[in-house]
């Protein structure tokens, strides 16, 4: 049932010119269930991206442990796909070749690679755009390519770090809907970082709210609607969830601001 288990995870960074290590995460606990869509919100700089990097295996925790399917994470792997806010597409590769990237790493034969890449471009609504280079695509389309790339090598877990934050509101909404469709279609476990409360409530089956730095998970809010038909955002329950998450966050944002002011004054 539990896909990702995060146990008492801390992460500190050694900052230049500062003998004191900088604590980004302290004692974070979180369980992500198999196949669920979990959104993660928290004040700016509370360690959301740091936590995602740890799950991705891009960095190692200072203490504590992260397990996927009960096996400790020791490094990156194709069982997890990461989608970054800035798309991170390879600009010298076409959309098709970008989607094939992970498949090459996985050792999929050429023909099969091309077929799967085309299939996944179609899944995100980009059939026929395979020969475009990233600079020939709009922001929304680039992010679709990035999502297709992460889905193509068929990871169990999709880790997304504010993937829609750089997009305009309308593109963001259409991508949110498509992401939900793809999620329902593929049954992947999704961890989705966002700084938008609406986005968190709209997408997440559960919303994990983090404290200000050093980040921990403060509360996990279960989000349940009897129906997702019609304009979900106008649903009264939506407003209640939204308000609840907002109140949890507000205290933390205030705390974060006090902290920042203290840092600013202590550094001159």
């Amino acid at each position, binding site marked *: 049932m539990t896909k990702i288990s995060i146990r008492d995870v801390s992460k500190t960074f050694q900052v230049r010119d500062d003998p004191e290590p900088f604590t980004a995460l302290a004692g974070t606990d979180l369980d992500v269930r198999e196949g669920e869509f979990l959104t993660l919100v928290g*004040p700016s700089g509370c360690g959301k991206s740091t936590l995602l990097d740890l799950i991705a295996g891009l960095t190692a925790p200072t203490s504590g442990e992260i397990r996927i399917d009960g096996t400790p994470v020791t490094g990156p792997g194709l069982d997890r*796909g990461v989608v970054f806010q800035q798309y991170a597409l*390879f600009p*010298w590769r076409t959309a098709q070749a970008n989607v094939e990237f*992970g498949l090459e790493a996985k050792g999929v034969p050429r023909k099969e690679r091309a077929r799967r890449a085309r299939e996944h471009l179609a899944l995100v609504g980009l059939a026929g755009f395979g020969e475009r*280079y990233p600079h*020939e695509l*709009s922001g929304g389309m680039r992010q679709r390519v990035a999502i297709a790339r992460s889905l193509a090598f068929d990871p169990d877990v999709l880790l997304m*770090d504010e993937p829609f934050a750089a*997009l305009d509101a309308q593109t963001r909404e259409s991508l949110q809907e498509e992401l939900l469709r793809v999620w329902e279609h593929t049954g992947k476990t999704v961890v989705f970082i966002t700084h938008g409360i609406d986005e968190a409530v709209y997408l997440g089956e559960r919303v994990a709210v983090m404290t200000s730095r050093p980040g921990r998970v403060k509360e996990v809010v279960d989000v349940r609607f009897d129906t997702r038909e019609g304009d979900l955002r106008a649903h009264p329950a939506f407003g209640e969830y939204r308000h609840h998450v907002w109140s949890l966050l507000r205290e933390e944002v205030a705390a974060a601001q006090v902290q920042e002011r203290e840092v600013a004054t202590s550094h001159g």
Partner: protein
Amino acid sequence: MADQKLLPGDVHWYDLPDEAADAPDDAANLPGGAADVPEERPRRRLPGRWLRRAATNSTAILLLLAAWEALPRLGVLDPVFVPPLSEDLVAWYDLLVTGRLPEHLGASVARSLAGFGLAIVLAIPLGLLIGWYRPVADFLTPLLELFRNTSAVALLPVFTLILGIGETTKVTFALYACAWPILLNTISGVKTVEPLLIKSARSMGLGPAGLFQKVILPAAVPTIFTGVRLAGAHSILVLLFAEMVGAKAGLGYLILDTQSSFRIPDMYAGIITISALGVLFNLLLVGVERRFSTWRTT
């Protein structure tokens, strides 16, 4: 990193006024996704526009050539020191048909290409190595900066002392001058690969070898080619100098020799050849560079 850009991800909704938080970056997109409008592909230039541009670009050159012809004839310039263009072209033609120009040209081109080619073969792998091992790069950079800013010309006497005045000196000299821009650009190309791309590739399980082959190298290619193009220009410039100091053939020798024996139109013929050679070589390299960096348009 000194000039870290502020990525949109670093700006959070609490830091922004409401409108800015939702600033549309691709407003052309409509909901539903299918209406995503891609940016327009660059259009081919129309022949009419191309002609007009060609005319604009060549006006200054044509004026220079006209002045070159007219001023000596009008007596504004002394025709002994600056013969009219037509006389220089006649001299050029004579040099061409007697085979003397092809001989000098051939000697120069062979030397620059040898130096240039060797520089590419040596400096690119070396630069990749230095750039990849960051501590090595940090260690060597001050030294490289020092050498880069020491004019190769200043070192020619040293080369001559060590290697004599034969072909080896000239080729080595061109090689030395060409190596710096290639080396420094290759190092910087490798070092300045977008960290997010590396992170993204690492997240897909690529190890150091895979990263190097699939991310670092392709990302660095345009920067490397800029270095190669600069080196191409260097190869001709510095070589001419070497040929003026000690040589029995080559365009540099031709120019100096004709000047000292007062064959002034022949001297200008040599100069015209060098200019044309330089421009052609540069055009060729710019074309190659462009081919290798089409993706770097944003």
